[in-house]
């Protein structure tokens, strides 16, 4: 009898291990020993730009990490969650070599800092023609919740996520500041004339949507803007962002404060948008990409959201404003700071921390 039970347990364990390893992908380390890799921009399969939070812009050229960082990056405040963060290529990068960087910018001679976005032309190993496009106002004393991700709308305007600065959360509900907002600007830094609040004298004209917390991922798919944001303790959200809409933070939330306190007993209110998905407990969503590659046909049409806690990627099947399915992937590489799609259909992960890696996910 005992022998039969032993054989049965062995059989179950064998079957589990067989199927658990039956995955369709494998990892290839592209670069390692990186200093807090944060944002990744793919030029083509073998040429990849990425930021390190500590202030370096790095280039993988022909599949090999260049040892020297790209010169000309402005000074950043590397503290807390601050540093060199978001990166995106211009839609016409092949012609103009233009990139956009988002970072925490120290105020000269002050103890304050702010989110800044610049454009620059990428030369062989330096940035030229650096232009400051946006500086969040007012500055903050904290080094947290910058947002600092970017995406292009189909009309060529640039969306910038601007976090609530942690200590300034209530400001997300007011339109006279940039805390907790999505910003929309032209690529020369001017303000589009059709921004939703340009005719409101009490509002800053760059604001596109508001009531956000710490937006860490934004992608545009067929004109639909998906953004994810960190909630406090619980209440991470995936939203469809739209011009002029209020996403409710901190008046409505599914999360609690880190102290355990209730920030708001409300989760819904007329005039405030609901997430299409939220997570309690938190997964700490970071980057986000939309997968259209051919390498993994079963994943086409999915959003991929990297997560820091406990460290995995959420594959989300969406049908416009409906989440149909969530699958947990890549949960064995640690905290993942960013995820991007490569033109060859592979996915590239940036793992978080002082010894971060860039990892390519390819089919077996």
């Amino acid at each position, binding site marked *: 009898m005992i022998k039969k039970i032993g054989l049965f347990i062995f059989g179950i364990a064998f079957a589990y291990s067989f199927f658990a390893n039956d995955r369709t992908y494998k990892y290839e380390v592209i670069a390692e020993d990186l200093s807090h890799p944060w944002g990744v921009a793919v030029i083509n399969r073998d040429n990849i730009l990425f930021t390190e939070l500590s202030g370096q812009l790095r280039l993988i050229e022909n599949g090999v990490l260049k040892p020297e960082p790209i010169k000309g990056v402005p000074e950043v405040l590397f503290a807390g969650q601050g540093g060199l963060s978001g990166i995106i290529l211009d839609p016409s990068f092949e012609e103009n070599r233009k990139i956009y960087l988002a970072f925490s910018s120290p105020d000269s001679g002050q103890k304050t800092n702010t989110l800044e976005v610049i454009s620059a032309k990428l030369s062989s190993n330096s940035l030229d023609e650096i232009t400051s496009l946006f500086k969040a106002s007012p500055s903050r*004393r904290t080094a947290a919740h910058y947002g600092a991700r970017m995406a292009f709308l189909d009309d060529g305007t640039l969306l910038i996520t601007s976090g609530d600065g942690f200590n300034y959360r209530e400001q997300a509900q007011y339109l006279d500041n940039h805390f907790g907002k999505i910003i929309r600007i032209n690529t020369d830094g001017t303000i589009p004339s059709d921004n939703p609040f340009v005719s409101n004298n009490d509002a800053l004209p760059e604001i596109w949507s508001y009531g956000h917390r710490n937006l860490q991922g934004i992608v545009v798919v067929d004109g639909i803007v998906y953004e994810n944001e960190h909630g406090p303790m619980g209440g991470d959200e995936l939203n469809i962002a739209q011009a002029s809409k209020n996403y409710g933070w901190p008046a409505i939330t599914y999360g609690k404060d880190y102290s*355990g*306190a*209730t920030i708001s*007993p409300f989760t819904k209110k007329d005039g405030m948008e609901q997430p299409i998905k939220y997570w309690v407990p938190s997964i700490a969503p970071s980057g986000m990409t939309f997968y259209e590659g051919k390498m993994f046909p079963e994943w086409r049409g999915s959003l991929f959201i990297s997560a820091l806690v406990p460290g995995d990627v959420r594959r989300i099947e969406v049908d416009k404003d409906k989440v149909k399915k969530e699958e947990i992937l890549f949960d064995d590489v640690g905290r993942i700071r960013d995820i991007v799609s490569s033109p060859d259909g592979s996915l590239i992960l940036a793992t978080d921390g002082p010894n971060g890696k860039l990892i390519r996910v390819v089919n077996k």
Partner: protein
Amino acid sequence: MTINIVNLIVSILIATCLVILQETMSNMFWLISVDMPVSISNFISTYFANILAMNFSGAIPLVALVAVAFLIAFLVAKILLNWLDVPKTYAYGVAGALAILSLVLLMPLAFYNLDILAGGRSVLGKSILTAFGLISGIYFGRTLEKRII
């Protein structure tokens, strides 16, 4: 000795409950200011939920933080009272106020200037919390003075 410990625990609990009251008030008053439909029952249920959550499911149990701050402050007050001729009520009142004020001022230094107690972000919030520390300290000091009489 036993009575002193009980009184110390009671003063810590008073301070903890008052700090949580201030945290609840600051959140609720702001919600009211943006036309959220906060009712009395919302307020009361949130307060009691906060008492549990801030001590048992927050990042750091508030009562433990208050206890450490009060123990240090009251110990210093007790030592100083050997040389200072001031009523214990005042001495422990000031110690309680400084304990809470230190907590509110020092905690952000450990978290990149982030105020974990949201109710302590403003000058008004810090002042109210300090006053609550004063009240809790005065309670402790008065219980000591009553025992002497």
